[in-house]
């Protein structure tokens, strides 16, 4: 029982990441009708926003301490971050919480990147076939990831979670399991809560604001909304920016779990496409549901008991599910009838 409970928890953090990325993908597909292969690159760019923030915060003044020597016998270099020099404890706190602080940095940056992308490139592809959209965004994804590789190198850059959220907690006790039966890292809980808040925020934004109402109307019938005198293009552009920002912060918060490298976007992209397809192209709740569902399925199938029966199932379970769904119910779990069913 506790093993199953642990797998549910393990599925949550991966599922949260899938759900967030798939949500962004679906927002873009639902509003603009564009299949965005560069979406994984946005996730990766978000993660590198966290790297950049930490780099800026830890810019250091180097002083030599002539009293002490390093292992080469030269005077020891002591690095003190400028923020610590200027603000003392506040500076230390800022470096410790750099992951959370970089969210504030990532949101505007990613929104701008998203809007520039839409206005500069994707705008010209609305009336081209889907194949052209796929190919162009695929090229864009390569370009983005190679630029990051040129600046940050090919190796993963580990990021640490804030000290207070770094350890693991014995979550099992809360649910009445034996002591130390279910141990779970704090940060993954934080990630799950964060994802839930972001997803809730996006849904609330779409449901309870006038802006959201117009966007939803535009998703159903873009032309009519345009005929009513509403500048739907501008709103869709903003939605693209929003989708980019959501994906970006998903990347920021994921950095303590997975050290960011330049190809992490591509790795997630394929899975997230599968998630979107399973959830139903263009269905936001479907994307979220499928994200969590597939995350959990993946963690369940990586249990040793399951692997003993079907070896290697953890590697392919997501693809298998996607195939079955596509063949049996092509519109996806919660997709609208007739939506891309050919």
């Amino acid at each position, binding site marked *: 029982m506790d093993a199953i409970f642990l797998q549910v928890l393990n599925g949550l953090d991966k599922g949260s990441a899938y759900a967030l990325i798939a949500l962004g993908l679906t927002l873009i597909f639902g509003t603009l009708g564009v299949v965005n292969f560069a979406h994984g690159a946005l996730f990766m760019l978000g993660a590198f926003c966290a790297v950049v923030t930490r780099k800026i915060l830890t810019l250091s003044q180097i002083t030599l301490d002539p009293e002490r020597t390093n292992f080469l016998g030269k005077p020891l270099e002591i690095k003190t971050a400028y923020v610590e020099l200027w603000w003392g404890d506040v500076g230390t706190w800022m470096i410790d919480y750099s992951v959370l602080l970089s969210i504030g940095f990532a949101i505007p940056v990613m929104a701008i990147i998203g809007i520039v992308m839409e206005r500069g490139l994707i705008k010209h592809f609305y009336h081209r076939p889907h194949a052209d959209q*796929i190919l162009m965004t695929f090229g864009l994804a*390569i370009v983005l990831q190679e630029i990051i590789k040129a600046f940050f190198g090919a190796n993963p850059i580990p990021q640490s979670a804030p000290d207070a959220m770094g350890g693991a907690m014995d979550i099992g006790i809360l649910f009445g399991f034996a002591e130390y039966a279910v141990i779970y890292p704090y940060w993954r809980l934080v990630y799950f809560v964060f994802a839930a808040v972001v997803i809730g925020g996006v849904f609330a934004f779409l449901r309870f604001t006038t802006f959201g109402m117009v966007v939803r109307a535009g998703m159903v019938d873009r032309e009519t909304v345009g005929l009513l005198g509403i500048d739907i293009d501008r709103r869709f552009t903003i939605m693209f920016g929003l989708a980019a920002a959501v994906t970006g912060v998903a990347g920021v918060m994921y950095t303590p779990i997975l050290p960011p490298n330049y190809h992490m976007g591509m790795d997630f992209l394929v899975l997230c496409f599968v998630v979107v397809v399973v959830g139903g192209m263009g269905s936001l709740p479907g994307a979220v549901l499928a994200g969590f569902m597939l995350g959990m399925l993946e963690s369940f199938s990586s249990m040793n008991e399951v692997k003993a029966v079907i070896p290697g199932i953890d590697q392919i379970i997501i693809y298998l599910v996607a195939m079955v769904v596509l063949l049996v119910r092509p519109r996806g779990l919660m997709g609208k009838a007739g939506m891309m069913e050919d």
Partner: protein
Amino acid sequence: MLKYNDKLLMLVFTILVLTGPIILAPFGAGYPDLLQRFVIFGILAVGYNILFGLTGYLSFGHAAFLGVGSYSTVWMFKLLTMNIIPGIILAIIMSGLFALLIGFITLRRSGIYFSILTLAFAQMSYSLAYSVLTPITNGETGLQIRLADARILDAKNDSGSLPSTNLFGLEMNDTWRTTFMGMDLQFNVGFYVSAFILIAVFYLSIRIFRSPFGLMLRAVKTNQNRLMYTGINTKPYTLAAFVISGMYAGLAGALLASMDPLAGAERMQWTESGSIVLMVILGGASTLLGPVLGAGVIKYFEAIFSRINDNVLHEWFDILPGFLETFMVWIVHPFVGKGWSLTLGAVFMIIVIFLPGGLMEGANRIGKRFVKLKRGSADNAKTPAE
């Protein structure tokens, strides 16, 4: 039989391919390794074009067939003989069967669903090759030939060194070198074996393009719904195209393994599938010559760009004043050497945005402009206002 134009095309193509080592030598591409890659990826692109160019189905999973071909061939080298013929035959059969299975499932959907399904299948094969299928694929190390392998058809090998791949005794890495007008010409057996195969499969692809079957595939691309309304079941046609292009990919994989008897799972990664698409798009999908051209251009610039380093760049921009030189080197640096992928991605975007028909369309446009210029001066007055 072929019409006059196609006969001419076939003839020119044959001559160009067979004289490749001579023509390409002045461009620094006359060495066997690169020449082999030209023709092998040419085969791959020609095959992919039968699916994508004719039916419009965008597959993102062709690297899987390439991998299957390579693995089958290396297994033949290990078990049967170092002669490449059994390996190639098995590779074509295996990749054909594999394509039949995948195609049967994925072709139930079209459009982006088809792309995503093939992508999923290819990723799945890649993951499996890395994990569960390790006894067959040898996991991360990749499948290699060993001295201790059975090779039941070959004579006993006592030399203590690994045997090399051959075609009835002709070793693939045999090269006949000569110097002609100061150029170092290298005629490699492996290249010529692949070249003859390329010419054969190119001929086959012309026949497919001109056949009623090819016409049907084009009809699928133009309007599949209308075709179905007229009572034609399109599935057998698309499936046949998928299997044929899968077999082409398997053949290319077999040749890759024949030139260098090694098969690794990274050959099946989906970025590899993406680069196959790149070749075809760059050259010009649904043209005959385009894919071969695209494969050649990409492989050529890959080899050239990867060799450029900062010293070469400094030499290039030597005439500029100091700070400008540093600046230009800084700008160009990420695009060359290890940054080849960046150039590739950028070029690809530019092609898709401005020239969706690829290089062949570009050549056509330029050609038309010249014709127009000539004719324009003659009958300018006759053109009606539009």
